[in-house]
C-alpha cells in the first residue's frame, strides 16, 4: 500500500520535473524551430509547431551576411580568457580571505560587490577614453581585461563561499604533517575545491559569453563577439524573426554544448556544501 503510494508520488514528481524542464527549455526549442521556418511562417498565427516547410535558408543568409567564425572565436577567447585570468587573481584572494580572515575581510568583500551596483553606462565614457588612449578599442585583450574586472567580484565571492566550507582543520593537519604552503594548496585545498572552482569557471564563462553592454560598446569589427553578431539581426522595423532565431541558435550553440557536457560538474558545484 505504502509502496504503491510512493510509486505514484515518484511518477507524479517525474512528470512535474519533466514539465518544468520542458517549460524552461521551451524558449530555446522555439528559437531553434523558428530558425528553420520562413519569415512568413515564423509570424503565422496560430503558431506552427512542427508541421511546416523546414528550410535552412536562414542559416545560409546569416552565413553570407556575417563572419560567424570570427565572432565565435572572439567570444571563446574573450570569455575563457577573462574567466581564467579572473580565477588566477581570485583563487589566492579567496584563499586569503577564507582561511586568514581579518577584521576587515567582510568590508573588503562588500566593497568588491558594491562595484557591481553601479550601472555600467555610468562609467562608459571614462572607460572608453582609457581604452582609446591605450589603443585597446576593438581588441580582444581590452575586452578580456574589462570582463575580468567586471566578473572578478562574483568569482571571488563564489570561491570564498566554497573555500569557507572546507574545514580549516584539514589544512592545519596537512601543515602539521609538514606540507608547505604550495603543497597545501595544490594537494589538499585544490582537490577538495575542484567542484567549486569548476562551477565558478563555468558560470563565469557563461556570464562573459552573454555580456552585451561592454562587448558591444568597446568592439567594432575585429574583436566583436557573438553579441554584436546578434545585434545585427534584431530589427525594430521589420519582422525578421526567422533570421534572428537562426543567428541566436548559432550564438548559443557553443555555450549550450559546453553546458550540456559540464552539467554534472555545474550542479555538483552549485549545491556544494548545501547538504552537510
Amino acid at each position: 500500500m505504502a509502496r504503491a503510494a510512493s510509486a505514484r508520488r515518484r511518477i507524479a514528481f517525474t512528470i512535474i520535473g519533466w514539465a518544468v524542464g520542458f517549460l524552461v527549455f521551451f524558449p530555446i526549442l522555439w528559437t531553434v524551430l523558428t530558425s528553420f521556418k520562413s519569415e512568413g511562417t515564423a509570424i503565422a498565427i496560430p503558431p506552427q509547431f512542427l508541421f511546416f516547410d523546414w528550410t535552412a535558408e536562414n542559416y545560409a543568409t546569416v552565413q553570407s551576411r556575417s563572419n560567424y567564425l570570427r565572432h565565435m572565436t572572439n567570444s571563446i577567447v574573450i570569455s575563457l580568457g577573462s574567466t581564467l585570468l579572473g580565477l588566477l587573481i581570485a583563487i589566492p584572494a579567496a584563499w586569503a580571505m577564507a582561511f586568514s580572515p581579518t577584521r576587515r575581510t567582510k568590508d573588503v568583500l562588500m566593497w568588491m560587490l558594491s562595484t557591481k551596483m553601479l550601472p555600467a553606462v555610468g562609467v562608459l565614457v571614462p572607460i572608453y577614453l582609457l581604452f582609446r588612449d591605450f589603443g585597446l578599442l576593438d581588441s580582444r585583450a581590452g575586452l578580456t581585461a574589462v570582463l575580468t574586472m567586471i566578473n572578478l567580484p562574483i568569482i571571488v565571492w563564489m570561491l570564498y563561499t566554497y573555500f569557507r566550507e572546507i574545514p580549516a582543520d584539514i589544512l592545519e593537519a596537512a601543515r602539521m604533517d609538514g606540507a608547505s604552503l604550495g603543497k597545501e594548496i595544490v594537494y589538499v585545498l585544490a582537490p577538495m575545491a575542484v567542484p567549486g572552482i569548476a562551477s565558478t569557471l563555468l558560470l563565469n564563462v557563461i556570464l562573459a559569453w552573454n555580456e552585451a553592454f561592454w562587448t558591444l560598446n568597446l568592439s567594432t569589427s575585429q574583436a566583436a563577439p557573438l553579441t554584436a553578431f546578434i545585434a545585427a539581426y534584431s530589427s525594430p522595423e521589420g519582422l525578421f524573426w526567422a533570421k534572428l532565431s537562426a543567428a541566436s541558435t548559432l550564438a548559443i550553440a557553443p555555450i549550450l554544448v559546453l553546458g550540456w557536457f559540464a552539467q554534472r560538474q555545474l550542479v555538483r558545484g552549485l549545491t556544494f556544501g548545501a547538504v552537510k
Partner: protein
Amino acid sequence: MKLKTWLLGAACLFATTGLVAAETLTIATVNNGDMIRMQALSGEFTKANPDIQLEWVILEENVLRQRVTTDIATKGGQYDVMTIGTYEVPIWSKQNWLLPLDDLGADYAADDLLPAIRNGLTVDGKLYAAPFYGESSMTMYRKDLFEAAGLTMPDAPTWDFVAEAARKITDKNKEVYGICLRGKAGWGENMAFLTAMANSFGARWFDESWKPQFDTPQWKEALTFYLDLMRDAGPPGASSNGFNENLALFQSGKCAMWIDATVAASFVTNPKESQVADKVGFALAPDKGLGKRGNWLWAWSLAVPAGTKKEEAAKKFIAWATSKDYLALVAEKEGWANVPPGTRKSLYDNPQYQQAAPFAAMTLASIEAADPTKPTVDPVPYVGVQFVAIPEFQGIGTAVGQQFSAALAGQASADQALSNAQQLTTREMTRAGYIK
C-alpha cells in the same frame, strides 16, 4: 646564394605588400534591407577602387546609435563612415563632429537630391550627410474592407474621414480593427507618430522662446482625438504596439488602416509574408485642413566623422553609395523595386521605377509634404518633423511618450497626461538652460 635568394624574395614580397597595402574603411550602418543590399553590392566599389577595403559593422538601430554616439563624442576614431539619421545631423554638425560633404565630385549631382531631405541634412548652407534612403509615413489601408463598408479612401484623407471610416469598419467580434497606430512609449515609437500627428492639428512642442506647448488646446485636441479613436477602433493592448507589432497585426488582416513608415509598404505587399498583400492601398497621411499633414520625414544618411584619417576614401565611398549610378546598379542587379527610395528627384521621374514601385508617387508626395525646417503650422525654434533636433529630446521625448502611452492604457486621462508632459518638459528644458 641561398641567402641572397631569400633576401631577394623577401624584398619582392615587401615591395608587393607595400604596393597593394590598401586603406581599410570601417563603415557603421543599420541592418535595414537597403543597407544590407549596399553591403552585398559593395564588391563593385572595391573592384573599381582596389586600394580601398571595406570593413562592415552592421547593427540594430538603437545599438548603432549608442555605439556611434559614444565614439564620436569621445573622438574614438573607430569608424570612417557612419550611418546617421536626420535627428543626429543638425546636433552633431553644430558640435563640429562631422566633415562637410560639399565636395563629392562634379558628377554627384547634389541638386538632384529631394529638397525636403537635403534641407534636413544641411546646416548653415553645408551638407553634412549624404542621404542613402529617405522615408516618410503614409496611410496603408485594406481596399477590400473599405469596399465592403461602401467607403472610398481619397488620396489625401482628412483625420475626420479616417476616424469615421475606422469606426465604421471596426468589428471587434471578428477581430477586425478600424485603425492600428503606435502606442508603445519611446521618442522613436509613439512620439514619432504623435508629434507628426500633432503638427497637423496645429500643435507644436515649443514656441519660439522654447516654452513647452502641451497646455495648448491644439495638443488637447490631438491627444483626445487619438485616444478616443484608439478606444473605439483600435486593437486591444495598443499601448504596447510599436512598428513591428502593428506590422504583424496588419499582415494578418486585423487592421483596416495603419499609418506608419513608408518602408512598411514593401513588407505588407510581399505575398511571402503578408496575408493581405494584394488588398493594400496607399494614401497620404491625414490632415486637418491646416496646411500640414501628419506624416514624418527621416533619412538614413552617410556621414564622415571629423576624427577620421581616411577622409578622401570615406568621401569616395559615400559619393558612390549615394550616387545616381548606385541606384542604377541596384536596379540592374535586383530590380527597380529594390532601389533605395526617397533621395533623388531623377528616380521619381524614371518611368521604369514608377512602374515597378506602385507606392512611388505616394512616397514622393509624402516626403515633399514634410519640411523639417518648417514642420508646424506656427513657427518653432527647432528643426525636425517628428522630433526636435536637440540633444535633450531623446530623454524628454521618451518621458512624454510614457505619459501618452499610460493615457492610452487607461491609466491616466488626456488632461493628466498633458499636464504631466508640460511639467516634465518645462523642468528638463529649464535645467538644460533653454528656459531662463
